């Protein structure tokens, strides 16, 4: 087929344009989050003393600061990565925010608590639960992000997939934090991070397979 002829065919298809990719991505992530939130409320629910804790416990509030510091930068980055002309360069540093906050939290915790309680705080009450629930609650947001990225045109498919996985885990961790009885930064560092790292890896792997175009 001649290129001029192809151009005629393409031009005749001028009217079928999809919604802007940023909009698709935002709606997909919103839908994925909603599904996980409903699943969370049905299966686990918010812990009984939620209102009390959020007002009085710095540790409890810090959990949400930390999980949102994973989810929000990841969401902003994914919006960029869905476009072909996005250069990841400096903006990848946004992702350093969460590790920096976590490190600060760990240091603070170690300063206020005597050393012989560290281990008990780290192991917590519900570590196995945490390991299972975060990946499960990540599934719907991850599927939604990958669906939207496929509509996009990522030129860094592995990075886009990885940040998508990170975003899904950030959303899942934010939900789970509202149930989880363990609030110590030591617990977060030991257990939450495993789920987050696993989902980032899953995202990278799926990205390398699904996001080429």
């Amino acid at each position, binding site marked *: *087929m*001649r*290129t*001029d*002829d*192809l*151009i*005629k*065919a*393409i*031009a*005749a*298809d*001028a*009217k*079928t*344009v*999809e*919604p*802007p*990719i*940023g909009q*698709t991505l935002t709606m997909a992530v919103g839908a994925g989050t909603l599904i996980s939130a409903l699943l969370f409320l049905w299966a686990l629910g918010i812990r009984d003393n939620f209102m009390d804790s959020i007002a009085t416990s710095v540790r409890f509030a810090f959990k949400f600061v930390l999980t949102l510091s994973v989810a929000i930068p990841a969401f902003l980055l994914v919006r960029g990565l*869905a*476009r*072909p*002309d996005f250069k990841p360069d400096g903006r990848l540093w946004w992702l350093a925010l969460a590790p920096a906050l976590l490190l600060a939290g760990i240091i603070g915790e170690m300063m206020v608590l005597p050393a012989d309680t560290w281990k008990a705080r780290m192991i917590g009450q519900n570590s196995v639960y945490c390991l299972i629930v975060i990946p499960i609650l990540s599934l719907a947001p991850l599927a939604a992000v990958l669906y939207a990225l496929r*509509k*996009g*045109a990522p*030129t860094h498919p592995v990075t886009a997939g990885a940040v998508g996985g990170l975003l899904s885990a950030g959303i899942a961790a934010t939900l789970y934090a509202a149930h989880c009885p363990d609030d110590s930064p030591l617990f977060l560092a030991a257990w939450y991070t495993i789920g987050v790292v696993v989902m980032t890896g899953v995202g990278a792997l799926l990205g390398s397979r699904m996001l*080429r*175009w």
Partner: protein
Amino acid sequence: MRAAIAGDESAYRKLLSELSQVLRGVVRRGFAGVGVPRDDVEDVVQDVLLAIHLKRHTWDRSMPLGPWVSAIARNKMIDDLRRRGRRPEVAVDLSEFEIEGEDQQASIDARDLDRVLNGLSDKNRDIVRSISIDGHSAKEVAERLGMTEVAVRVALHRSLKALAATYQEKNT
């Protein structure tokens, strides 16, 4: 491109035609150093044009069009080189290239797309051929085939997607 996204066919056609000339130069120069045959250049140009079309909702209207087109061209060229088992090192910078004065290659057939076209159903192939090679409008094709114009447009859109997807499958 703004007019094209708003659905203006003639503006879109003009834009694609200009872009194809720029792309032809870019791809030819990008491939010259690695010894890719000139005939294959047209295949890649067509692949890039399809990608521009199907991914145009990923262009941020507040940004310049050039870097976006370059990024798509670069991605498609890298794919093509990878397919050939070469190390994909392609520098694409549209700002370096002038639009080529003459446009001889546009009349050269690209073989890949013909093979791909054969994979479509008879009706869809007929629709694509009528609109592209014979230059009929969607309305004329609709009347001839006894379909609604909308159905013809939908079939055309699906066919273009299928063409792009077949390029993609070849890559994997």
